[in-house]
């Protein structure tokens, strides 16, 4: 049902120029005008928002969709015998179709969750909890966010399985050491859970190589795509993964909504994650049977407004010229990286060739927290700290980093503002 002919991984191309056309010059100013929050002036200074890996801002159409739901359609989904419930249900399910199209999946394979974290917990507890046993291995990587570490740690502790970790390359540029794959992913491996793009460093993992190895030993694969979907097309069929997870709020949608893609055969076989309303077929005091997919994994009233607004975000996103947005992001990263290399005392952390538009760095003599606070005073919003990747920071031997993460609505002017602000920061250190 994917309805896409394009080669670039299930990317709906409505509104995009003809394939093969040269990347048009990208009108970032026009895009900025769609994001009302970018007009904010913290401490009286124009906002430079570079915390997009934590959450992206929302275009007006998404804010309108959320308001519109509460103004006109608010009602519960799937069971109301009235007009409003039908409208809400239609919009809710349309959003699921939109996400299915985005990922090249079927609508029954798209489960709504609260976010990436809950999606991973669902798989760890339902799939991992029901299949893992003593002697099995679960393989993750050194680049994982805590959300793709702790749920596996917990289920391993409960089942007796062992957690194994793909290490970094010895040169510590943040890339994974794939030469270890054959030793780590073996006949004992049941699950490989790997981050598509490192949230702390922006490095794009060669997930296809890792998935190929997992396939060779018959392991099930989960890909944490929280930092990937906003930057490049993702096709779960082409990837050949079993589960793919991401959060709406990092893709211009609202918080509190996440996506779990799961291969249908696995979802059918898995026990429910949470139980209660909506997810049942028939309940007696003696026993219950489960609703069909995807509802079997959606207990309770979902975040209806959030899902509907996310549908608007996905449609908005799919209608952009995504190749032009990606080219613009690549330009911002190259421009920022060039400035970073020339900046005295600045060290890029994770200086690898294959990255999304994220610049993680340290300033000599400056704790990330100091740098972040002093940038904030100048209207520049970044993220500082360990980025919920403490084991990665330990492996790199650093307390954390300063992270500037770009979105298509950022401009070279934002990069200039960042480095002008860093000049001032340097005088304090």
């Amino acid at each position: 049902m994917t309805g896409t002919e394009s080669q670039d991984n299930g990317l709906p191309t409505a509104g995009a120029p003809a394939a093969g056309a040269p990347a048009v010059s990208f009108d970032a100013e026009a895009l900025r005008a769609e994001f009302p929050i970018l007009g904010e002036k913290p401490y009286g200074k124009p906002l430079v928002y570079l915390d997009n890996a934590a959450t992206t801002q929302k275009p007006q159409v998404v804010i309108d969709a959320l308001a519109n739901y509460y103004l006109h359609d608010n009602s519960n989904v799937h069971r109301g015998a009235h007009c409003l419930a039908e409208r809400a249900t239609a919009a809710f399910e349309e959003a699921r179709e939109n996400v299915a199209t985005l990922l090249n999946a079927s609508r029954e394979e798209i489960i709504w969750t609260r976010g990436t974290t809950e999606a991973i917990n669902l798989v760890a507890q339902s799939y991992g909890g029901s299949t893992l046993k003593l002697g099995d291995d679960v393989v993750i990587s050194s680049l994982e966010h805590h959300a793709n570490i702790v749920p596996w740690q917990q289920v391993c502790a409960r089942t007796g399985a062992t957690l194994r970790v793909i290490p970094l390359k010895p040169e510590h540029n943040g890339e994974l050491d794939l030469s270890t794959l054959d030793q780590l992913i073996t006949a004992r491996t049941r699950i490989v859970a790997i981050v598509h793009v490192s949230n702390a460093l922006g490095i794009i993992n060669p997930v296809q190589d890792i998935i190929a190895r997992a396939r060779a030993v018959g392991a099930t694969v989960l890909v944490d795509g929280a930092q990937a979907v906003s930057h490049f097309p993702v096709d779960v069929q082409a990837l050949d993964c079993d589960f793919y997870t991401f959060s709406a709020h990092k893709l211009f949608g609202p918080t509190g909504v996440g996506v779990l893609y799961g291969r249908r055969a696995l979802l059918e076989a898995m026990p429910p994650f949470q139980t209660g309303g909506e997810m049942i077929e028939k309940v007696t005091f003696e026993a219950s049977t489960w609703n069909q997919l995807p509802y079997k994994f959606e207990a309770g009233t979902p975040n209806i407004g959030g899902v509907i607004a996310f549908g608007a975000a996905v449609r908005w996103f799919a209608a952009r010229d995504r190749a032009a947005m990606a080219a613009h992001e690549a330009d911002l990263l190259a421009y920022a990286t060039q400035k970073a290399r020339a900046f005295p005392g600045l060290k890029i952390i994770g200086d690898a060739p294959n990255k999304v538009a994220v610049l993680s760095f340290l300033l000599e003599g400056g704790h990330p927290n100091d740098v972040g606070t002093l940038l904030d005073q100048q209207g520049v919003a970044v993220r500082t700290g360990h980025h919920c990747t403490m084991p990665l920071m330990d492996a790199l031997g650093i307390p954390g980093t300063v992270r500037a993460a770009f979105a298509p609505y950022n401009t070279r002017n934002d990069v200039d503002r960042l480095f002008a602000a860093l000049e001032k920061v340097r005088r304090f250190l």
Partner: protein
Amino acid sequence: MTSPTSSSTPDLDMANLGLGRDITADDVVDNLSFFDDWEERYGYIIDLGKQLPPFPDALKTEDRFIRGCQSQVWLELQHDAGNGCLHMAVDSDALIVRGLAAIVLAALNHKTPQQIADYDMADYFEKIDLLKHLSPTRGNGVRAMVSRIQNEARSRL
């Protein structure tokens, strides 16, 4: 409350630290109200932190450690049997947090447990407009440091 209160701490003359004696809370309030831009304010805060004496690595033990989400604080508390006061020494891996810790010491260092327990920290931080640095979400350890000092003081009342 397991804060150590060792009777003598080598390499650290805690009883004579200027913060809380030569530099008081009133000095901090006066100075910070005098500045009108962020650069002067933060420059002053960072300079205050730099006035803290070096904190010996030997004292950076788990029981003196206060874990923040982003930065870390070490706090040594010493009870002066002579005058009943609490003497303090602090350190942090972040400059601004060191400065904020120094600002806390300007108010609480060399005071008796009763004076510390009675001290209105919220009012102090409001006066110097640094409350945002103390919100739990900042996770920089300063709030936890204040709590540890206050708990130590209360345990001695």
